């Protein structure tokens, strides 16, 4: 058995030096961090001979014209022992023993940061001085360690010389003034060309290097870049574009404008998570819940959502656009871990999510923020190459982007839901380019901000989705406080708006006479507003526990007012409808009346044929009556009339009067045609039908009729009114002769002739007329108590029909009189 040891081949220098730290900016940052850890209040990063140098000529020793990067600090410095036992002791880090030095959390602890010098240049001169001690100088030519294929050459085999030098020598050699304590690293013959752009890039990294809030509590730490070759270029450039000058810390504790943000912290003991959501600078809720992330503690997250206005304000305040600034940075113990959160870096997978739902998720372009980890237990291990931290369990608990989510996403998703569902992205009315111009003008204030959505509806929606946003299990929630002022303000706004709406409606009602449609429309609006108010009240009730009663009463009073007004409007609507209905009815009745009146004045177009005929017949009968009366009257007055003429005219009058009565009796019969005074009809059929309905017309049961038609018929144009009257008269005479039976026999003696025998079983005609039957047809002659007009009229009417009548005598058929009527 032999004892063996690890050996460190000389090539290890490159492995942990220029080959490990691949980014120059990271290399400088490491050296700056070392200065910070050495309690330096400031560090200067000086670039010399960057543009013009003799680098190509230098082989062994750098000259004064060789390109240089000088890191100069005023830290505690090192002496010979420090150099040999600590600085040259690879992987040894005093910082591992002391997590905090000088009131600062130490930044580096791997013991390899020093090898950043190898990354930056081929040569290194370290000048360091402790207080009350001498300057020490160490020169390293890194090429000596770059020996390939010599397995026997260990890094320890390369010897280095460290000297003590006098202050004057220090000044002479370095060109810098003496200092009491501190370290000056002169890195010569830069391995990369440092352009203005590259230095500016370094500047950006240095700006975000330190989180002042986290890194130190009392002491400042200034970083300054000096690059004299670029002084001329810096003239007329904006501050943030200049290379030379102090680095301003760009880590914002608080943006100097209202934003929507969420901040959350896991307590030092890891038991609780406290989260605060702010909207436009006002706290919405504060949630304290149990911490389920067992590996995480003492972590702080702050994420800001930048709406259009915020982006412009950000740019104005910081000098750079938010997209150029980066998104979520990670700080461990006060120092930023690049490249996390750099422009284009998506270490949290935010852009991948955004790609899955552009309108549902926030991306790196819409947010800025940071995660600050205070890691006393070295849980989060920085990768030696300084390109992030190891993806270990704590890192996963912090960053997991799928369910169950890591701590960052647990918090981030609340902000996301708030932005997407609560404030609907808080969109401005105008485009960013237009707003930028306005905001950059003098006189702009945030009170001039204009959004697509009004504040009240926005805030009401926030309130309604708050629980959804929080999305915390009840058993995990320790305390949830919704900002009472926020709720109260919403209530006040809503009350104000509702009152205004109600007043507007009242004004509508009071200012004018409304019709039904207008009332209905107002009622619809009122109902809608009432529903809105009810919805609001319902949402609001969840959060009303801690609000003063007066405010709660305000809401219910308002609701009551709406309901009352609604009831009043409903009654008004109903009344107006009634009035409208009555008016409509009255109009219709008036119209009808008008039509009725109009009816009388218009032509007979709308009169039925029956009515026309009726009018026609009435006119004829009335005209005849009138004419005869006029003539009678005049002649009686003038004494120029004989008795016979009087009787004749009276019989005409009577006949026509009876005709008029007949018309009124027959008009209801459905088969009674009054279209014409005369019409063609079958006399036999007429007699049959007329006799059949005789009892309907005259309502008598005392007469019994027997008709024998013998299949006869005769069509003749005649007035059926007149024919009716003829039979009326004959039947009347039979009744007066106390007949109970009437027999009518009809036959055709020839084709165009008709004979009707009308007989009754009455008392018959008087004997005195037996030889002078024709006398009966004279005016004034009667065998009954009649007027003596009837038979005369009968004969006259028959004559006009082309017929005649004669009395045959008594007992010809039945016991009483028999009349014979002939039509030829």
């Amino acid at each position, binding site marked *: 058995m032999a004892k063996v040891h690890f050996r460190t081949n000389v090539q290890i220098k490159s492995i942990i030096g220029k080959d490990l730290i691949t980014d120059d900016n990271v290399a400088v940052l490491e050296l700056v961090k070392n200065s910070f850890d050495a309690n330096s209040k400031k560090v200067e990063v000086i670039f010399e001979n960057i543009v013009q140098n003799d680098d190509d000529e230098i082989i062994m020793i750098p000259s004064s014209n060789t390109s240089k990067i000088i890191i100069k600090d005023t830290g505690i410095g090192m002496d010979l022992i420090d150099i040999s036992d600590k600085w040259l002791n690879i992987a040894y880090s005093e910082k591992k023993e002391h997590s905090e030095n000088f009131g600062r959390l130490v930044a580096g602890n791997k013991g390899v940061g020093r090898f950043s010098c190898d990354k930056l240049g081929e040569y290194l001169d370290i000048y360091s001085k402790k207080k009350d001690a001498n300057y020490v100088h160490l020169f390293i030519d890194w090429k000596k360690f770059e020996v390939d294929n010599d397995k026997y050459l260990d890094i320890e085999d390369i010897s280095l010389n460290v000297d003590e030098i006098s202050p004057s020598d220090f000044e002479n050699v370095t060109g810098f003034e003496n200092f009491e304590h501190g370290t000056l690293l002169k890195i010569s013959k830069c391995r990369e060309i440092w352009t203005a752009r590259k230095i500016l890039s370094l500047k950006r990294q240095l700006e975000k290097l330190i989180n002042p809030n986290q890194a130190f509590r009392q002491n400042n730490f200034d970083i300054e870049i000096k690059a004299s070759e670029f002084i001329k270029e810096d003239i007329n450039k904006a501050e943030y574009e200049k290379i030379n000058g102090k680095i301003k810390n760009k880590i914002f504790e608080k943006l100097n404008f209202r934003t929507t943000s969420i901040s959350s912290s896991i307590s030092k003991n890891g038991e609780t998570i406290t989260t605060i959501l702010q909207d436009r600078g006002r706290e919405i809720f504060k949630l304290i819940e149990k911490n389920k992330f067992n590996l995480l503690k003492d972590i702080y997250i702050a994420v800001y959502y930048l709406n259009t206005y915020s982006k412009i304000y950000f740019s104005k305040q910081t000098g750079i656009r938010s997209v150029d600034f980066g998104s979520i940075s990670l700080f461990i113990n006060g120092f930023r871990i690049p490249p996390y959160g750099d422009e284009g870096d998506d270490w949290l997978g935010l852009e991948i999510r955004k790609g899955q739902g552009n309108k549902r998720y926030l991306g790196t372009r819409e947010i800025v923020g940071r995660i600050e980890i205070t890691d006393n237990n070295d849980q989060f291990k920085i990768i030696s190459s300084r390109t992030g931290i190891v993806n270990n369990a704590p890192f996963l608990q912090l960053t997991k982007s799928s369910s169950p989510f890591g701590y960052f996403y647990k918090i981030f998703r609340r902000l996301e839901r708030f932005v997407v569902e609560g404030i609907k992205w808080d969109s401005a009315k105008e485009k960013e380019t237009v707003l930028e111009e306005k905001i950059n003008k003098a006189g702009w204030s945030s009170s001039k901000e204009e959004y697509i959505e009004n504040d009240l509806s926005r805030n009401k929606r926030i309130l309604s989705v708050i629980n959804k946003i929080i999305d915390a299990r009840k058993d995990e929630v320790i305390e949830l406080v919704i900002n009472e002022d926020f709720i109260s303000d919403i209530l006040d706004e809503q009350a104000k708006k509702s009152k205004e709406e109600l007043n507007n409606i009242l004004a509508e009602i009071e200012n004018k006479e409304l019709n039904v449609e207008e009332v209905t429309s107002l009622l619809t609006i009122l109902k809608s507003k009432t529903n809105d108010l009810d919805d609001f009240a319902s949402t609001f009730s969840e959060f009303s526990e801690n609000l003063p009663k007066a405010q709660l009463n305000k809401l219910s009073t308002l609701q009551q007012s709406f309901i009352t007004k609604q009831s009043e409007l409903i009654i008004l609507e109903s009344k107006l409808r009634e009035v409208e209905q009555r008016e409509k009815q009255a109009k219709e009745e008036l119209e009808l009346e008008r039509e009725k009146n109009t009816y009388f004045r218009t*032509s007979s177009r709308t009169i039925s044929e029956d009515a026309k005929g009726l009018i026609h017949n009435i006119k004829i009968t009335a005209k005849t009556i009138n004419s005869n009366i006029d003539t009678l009257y005049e002649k009686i007055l003038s004494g120029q009339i004989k008795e016979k003429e009087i009787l004749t005219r009276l019989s005409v009058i009577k006949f026509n009067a009876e005709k008029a009565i007949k018309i009124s009796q027959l008009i209801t019969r459905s088969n009674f045609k009054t279209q014409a005074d005369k019409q063609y009809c079958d006399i036999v059929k007429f007699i049959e039908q007329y006799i059949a309905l005789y009892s309907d017309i005259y309502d008598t049961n005392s007469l019994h009729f027997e008709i024998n038609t013998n299949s006869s018929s005769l069509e003749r144009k005649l007035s059926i009114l007149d024919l009716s009257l003829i039979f009326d008269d004959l039947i009347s005479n039979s009744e007066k002769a106390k007949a109970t039976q009437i027999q009518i026999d009809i036959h055709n003696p020839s084709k165009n002739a008709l004979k009707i025998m009308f007989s009754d079983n009455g008392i018959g005609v008087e004997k005195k007329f037996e030889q002078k039957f024709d006398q009966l047809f004279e005016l004034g002659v009667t065998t009954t108590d009649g007027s003596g007009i009837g038979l005369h009229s009968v004969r006259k009417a028959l004559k006009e029909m082309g017929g005649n009548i004669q009395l045959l005598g008594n007992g010809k058929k039945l016991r009483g009189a028999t009349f014979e009527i002939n039509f030829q």
Partner: protein
Amino acid sequence: MEKKTCLIIDDTDQSDIRERIRANGLKLNIDIECREFNVGSQWRTDLLNDGNIDIEKVIQIFKEEFNGVKFDLIAFDYDLEDKEQDLERKVTGLTLISRIGEIRKRSIKLIYSAMLNDLLQDIFEEYKKTQNLRTAKSRIKSLLFNGIRDFADRSDYDSKIITLLQAKEPNIDDLIEEKMREYNSMTFLSIYPAFKGMTFGNIADIMESDIIRGNKFKREIIDQIISNMVEINEK
């Protein structure tokens, strides 16, 4: 007293009405002689053919019956109760106006038992049913071109007759016609060859029915009168 004549054409007896017209006319100092012509009635079978009004018979008998009789006014009953179903052959008051109007151009025409809008309505309704444009046009033409002076309701057509007769001023044509008819049966022998051998009554008919021939004759008479007056004057 002013003398006027009128004729009532109706299918029903108008004797009562004629009596009233005469009596009322006398009150107004007008001696109105009123006759009637019962076209369509059942007792004037000479005017019928198989129960229907025969228009040719009507015209012929009219000429015979009223030859030499001047009528200042002819009143037509619109509704003559013609049984004829064929509308083209159905005879109404308008038909008679059209035919009788041709031979009695100067007589005032009155239609009663129908108002103008009723008449038009009837014509249009008929047309709507039958789509017989020819008949509709013919009826409208009758209304337009037969010198119908007025329309009257049946209830007051007698007073309308009196009014129209009262308003009618005699003109030269009436005077000539009146005189011609007064000497109705005298034969015309000279001065106007066209009418040679005709009775005065015939000539009066021609003058009334044929405006052109009538005017020629009148011109001739006037020439004759003037030349006689000149002759007398010279003498």
